[in-house]
């Protein structure tokens, strides 16, 4: 073959690569001054360490330099994360992303969402593709240690529950003796069910299926007396049944599923920020401050605790590396915990999920924020 063949092949190859390059060119948020269309984003070397470890203060600096937060979310979980018909992310977890952005920038919209599947979520966090992972992630010892991650304050206490028909007369776990229970196979749900029932000496028949759709389809057809999965999942699924009111969720909880934001290990400042943003939403509810009255309260208050929260004294924000109005911004633009909960899961939504464990400690729940002072 002549040399020209190779020239030609070379040109073809280069063309192919160029096309591929054009095809996926990623743009940094280019200001009018700069064309920053690059496939590969090179960020200023902030951490000298490995992929997983982030140095103290580096995440906040990266986020501030970039101008927006990148938040890993679930795009497909009713109530927690989804895209509405206008193309905007909505949901409980999504609101916490907005809250973090509001605390840092005073603008809840300065956040970019990265939809993640359960499998890739930790890798995305470890490699720094996202700054914080708020994607219904259960806090466990293994995840906290092996994966190089830190779990911030729990925002939602979930737990495995059981859904039964109202007319079945089942009201507690013991009533399930001899019952058939639909469950998805290969999940922790299936194992939890076996453990809990064995511990109580209850005899039951598991009816296993591959997917949640099949599980609930079988339950609706009457092939089993009860169905089990996380309570938040039961609630969103119950809405889809023909007569949602004919079904009730038992009070019993079979497992602990504390869900909350996750950050990389090594950057304690960033970990503190995420923690205290969550605590600010708790504190807002405890003090009765919400997005509607926050301006009023700020103008009139004499309470030193409220003043510290809203940045009128104590310079609390600076200790976190933020502005002193950080908590004010969170409550003003996103709301306190009760508002976030009501908006996404409360009576105004199809889920109408009772607060339960997710009530403030004052109402007998588990939400308890350390004092801001």
């Amino acid at each position, binding site marked *: *073959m002549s040399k020209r063949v190779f020239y*030609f092949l070379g040109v073809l190859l280069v063309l192919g690569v160029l096309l591929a390059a*054009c095809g996926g060119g*990623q743009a940094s*948020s280019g200001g009018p001054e700069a064309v920053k269309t690059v*496939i590969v*984003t*090179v*960020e200023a070397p902030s951490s000298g360490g490995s992929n997983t470890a982030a140095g103290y203060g580096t995440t906040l600096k990266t986020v501030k330099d970039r101008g927006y937060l990148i938040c890993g979310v679930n795009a497909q979980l009713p109530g927690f994360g989804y895209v509405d018909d206008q193309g905007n992310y909505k949901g409980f977890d999504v609101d916490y992303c907005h809250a973090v952005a509001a605390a840092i920038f005073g603008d809840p919209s300065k956040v970019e969402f990265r939809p993640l599947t359960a499998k890739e979520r930790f890798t995305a966090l470890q490699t720094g593709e996202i700054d914080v992972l708020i994607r219904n992630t259960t806090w466990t010892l293994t995840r906290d240690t092996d994966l190089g991650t830190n779990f911030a304050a729990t925002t939602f206490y979930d737990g495995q529950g059981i859904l039964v028909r109202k007319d079945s007369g089942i009201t507690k776990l013991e009533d399930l003796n001899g019952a058939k229970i639909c469950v998805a196979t290969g999940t922790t749900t299936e194992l939890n069910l076996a453990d809990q029932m064995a511990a109580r000496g209850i005899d039951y028949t598991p009816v296993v299926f591959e997917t949640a759709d099949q599980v609930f389809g079988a339950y609706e057809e009457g092939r089993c007396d009860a169905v089990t999965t996380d309570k938040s999942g039961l609630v969103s699924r119950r809405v889809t049944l023909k007569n949602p009111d004919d079904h009730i969720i038992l009070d019993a909880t079979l497992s602990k599923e504390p869900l909350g934001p996750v950050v990389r290990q090594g950057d304690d400042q960033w970990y503190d920020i995420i923690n205290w943003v969550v605590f600010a939403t708790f504190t807002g509810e405890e003090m009765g401050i919400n997005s509607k009255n926050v301006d009023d309260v700020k103008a009139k208050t004499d309470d030193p605790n409220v003043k510290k929260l809203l940045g009128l004294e104590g310079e609390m924000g600076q200790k976190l590396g933020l502005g002193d109005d950080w908590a004010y911004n969170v409550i003003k633009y996103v709301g306190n915990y009760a508002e976030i909960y009501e908006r996404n899961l409360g009576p105004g939504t199809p889920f109408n999920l009772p607060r339960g464990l997710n009530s403030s400690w004052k109402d007998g729940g588990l939400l308890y924020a350390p004092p801001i002072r």
Partner: protein
Amino acid sequence: MMNREPEQYSSGEVLAPPTERYTVLGWLKKNLFSTWYYTLLTLVTLYILYIVLKPTLIWVFTQAQWQVVVVNLRLFMVGQYPTDQIFRIWVALHLLAFTAGLAWAIWLPRARRIGAFLLFIPLALAALPFISGFSRINWIIFAVAALIGWGLGTWKPKAMRRPLLVLLLAYFPILILLILGIEPILKIVKTNLWGGLLLTMLLAVVGITVSFPLGILLALGRRSELPIVKLFSILYIEIIRGVPLVTVLFMAQLMLPLFLPPQIKIDNVLRAMAGIILFSAAYMAENVRGGLQAIPKGQSEAAWALGLSGFQTTFFIILPQALRNVIPVLVNQFISLFKDTSLVAIVGLLDLLGIASTVLAQPEFIGKQREVYLFIALIYWVFSYAMSYASRRLEVALGVGER
């Protein structure tokens, strides 16, 4: 490409042999009720169709709540692409219509059906009740653009040939520039906002356009006499073919970032594209190689004897024949690639399938799985069938299967 001169007959018209003609009843009798067992089969089939289709149609037309599709139509089509920038996608479509009109007039002046496709489908879409006025106007512009292209091509078929080729070659870069944007003329739209059918089409089009030449190179490489080129091609093809696409995508999404230094981040849409291209190229190479094997050795020997160089032999004698032979296989590969793009949904991209699942998580539309999945299945089918139809026309135009 279909750039073949329409055949000109200098002598008198050749009359086609007479065709059989039937009345409706005659056709029914011949095809469905010719013997007693055919009659029985027909009746059984009709009965099965009846019991399957009746509830389906009743559901589709009376029980299904299509509101979920109507409300989220934009999401399904372009994902989160900014509303004020959607005109850019339309411009790309109009340009496509113009190019197609031009190609139709120049290459296939007698193919009326393509004309019907280009004109009536957009007009029919414009008449749909639930689309926005903006889309309605744009579908009409689409039809007009096709018509202008056709007019120009019919008016000056010879002069427009070169512009058409240029347009075809330039279309792909223009498309990417339009959709991605270029500062300061067009606002950059980041890839994380690309979604729905737009993302699916981009992944498929980029996958097809880039993996095709790559596959040809690999096929030639595998038949090459240079040991390193040959070894590399064989290794590449066999390794990639031994791995499922899902694995390749997961590698691209999960492993690649771990190997790269922490400051370098490659866009995840690009990573998915690269995965699809690399995967598809291996299959493409084997398809093309099949075509190359089918060319008798005499062809290249004849070319050498005529004094053609290796380059000329490969690209003017062997490849055109080889590719012509494998059109059905290639189109098969394209269709399967188009559908395989839905796998990116499991690495977190919101393509058509990914958008479908996120729409299903909207509180007001929980439990509308049937409507949503039926709708996207219809979209996948329309595009796959269009590709298959186009390939059949191409085979007819190139005379494949007639020898």
